[in-house]
């Protein structure tokens, strides 16, 4: 366990000043910032909206609709590929694989960094959702802070579902990113599958495509006869297992 912690610390340090790290922060606050600006731009609607009993639910849906269907899957495709490409781009696999740590530790530490970055992203985005309700009122005297208390439990519950739904994308992109030296392959496959999932989201077998699940939260499929969250968890485990086997059985380590 100590070895894993050190390995994680090392991997965490590597992401400093990377595009993936920047993407996590910018991607998480972009939509809330746009919504805050849009709300400030329409002060007459703002006072009424902030007095509504379900203002937070409305803001949550507004934020997550764009995030869940567009920014989250695309951001995950990009960020996961960027993290794994760090070793290829810098020609550092050979150095990493001659350090005294098992390949399993390397595999898990990298995956854990992506997981923690995703949590960081969700945390910032949740704060962003709260800011979309809290900030606009600060600009106008007649606009009060939302009457309804912020529903933390419901928001965390919803975020946890989105988190689970995006895990198969993380796992498959991780597999591709570890496997292919050419950055365009994981990126191309990821974006291709995302486009396919958007086309297939209303198809009855659309749930077979692991990139559809976060969008299903807005098209009502999650509540249908199949439970998409279970499919997401299953795909995530399958892809992670496959990625691990492919990684440790590589003939060339670096």
């Amino acid at each position: 366990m100590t070895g894993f912690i050190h390995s994680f610390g090392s991997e965490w340090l590597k992401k400093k000043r990377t595009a993936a790290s920047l993407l996590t922060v910018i991607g998480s606050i972009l939509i809330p910032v746009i919504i805050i600006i849009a709300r400030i731009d329409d002060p007459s609607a703002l006072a009424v909206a902030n007095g509504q009993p379900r203002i937070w639910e409305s803001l949550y849906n507004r934020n997550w609709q764009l995030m869940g269907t567009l920014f989250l899957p695309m951001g995950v495709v990009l960020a996961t590929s960027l993290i794994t490409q760090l070793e290829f781009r810098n020609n550092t696999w050979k150095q990493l694989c001659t350090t005294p740590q098992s390949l399993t530790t390397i595999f898990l530490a990298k995956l854990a960094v992506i997981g923690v970055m995703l949590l960081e992203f969700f945390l910032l985005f949740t704060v962003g959702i709260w800011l979309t309700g809290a900030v606009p009122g600060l600009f106008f005297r007649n606009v009060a802070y939302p009457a309804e208390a912020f529903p933390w439990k419901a928001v965390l519950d919803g975020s946890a579902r989105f988190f689970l739904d995006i895990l198969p994308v993380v796992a498959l992109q991780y597999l591709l990113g570890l496997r292919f030296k050419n950055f365009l392959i994981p990126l191309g496959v990821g974006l291709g599958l995302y486009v396919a999932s958007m086309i297939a989201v209303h198809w009855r077998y659309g749930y077979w495509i692991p990139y559809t699940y976060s969008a299903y939260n807005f098209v009502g499929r999650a509540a249908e006869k199949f439970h998409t969250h279970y499919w997401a968890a299953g795909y995530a485990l399958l892809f992670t297992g496959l990625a691990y086997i492919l990684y440790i059985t590589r003939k060339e380590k670096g």
Partner: protein
Amino acid sequence: MTTLSLETTGLSHRFSGDAPVLSGLDLRVPERSIYGFLGPNGAGKTTTLRLVLGLLKKQQGEIRVFGKPFAENRMAILPKLGSLIESPSVYSQLTAVENLRVLQKIYRCPPDRIGHVLRLTGLADTGKKKAGRFSLGMKQRLGIAIALLNDPALLILDEPTNGLDPEGIIEMRELFRELNRQGVTLLVSSHLLAEMEKLVTHLGIIHKGQLLFQGTLETLREGRNGDDLETIFIHLTKKRA
């Protein structure tokens, strides 16, 4: 009997569908030696070093490091081994200190080793400059600093003076000699024959995956009328061509 830091027995390797790159290589690197590993391009030097470090899956033969089979003792051997294979492995967005910190966390060596190896390799004043903006020579120095970070007993260096200016080459030669005086065994692969002649105590000359010579520099020179290493090397490799 000479203690060996590194030993390979019958090491053979071929990439799928190609002719063998290595055929029954028996490498003997004595402890506390500076072993020069020489050979023309494509002779199998880098493949040998990659196999020794476990970067390539071993197909045939035995690899023993510090007297122990490498594959079975990888985790015990790697903390005592430093390496620089081909081009230096550095994270371009990080500074020299940060690059070393990435590895210091894994090796769990004292943090003051970072400053020490930076001073040894002449990179102590690089400050906040990112490694991506380093010259090739500076990257090479950082690669050597990384290899030295864990205070290794065996240092495996593939073309360590690549990209260094003449002054840098002399500095590194002095550094390698000093490390050797302190007890470090060095296995150095290089094309710079004149430089190797000034540095090494032992030599292995490889050609088309087979060792043509292995032994001390003195043994190689015996009966060759004072020929320099370059002349002997060309004579040996042409004879087998």
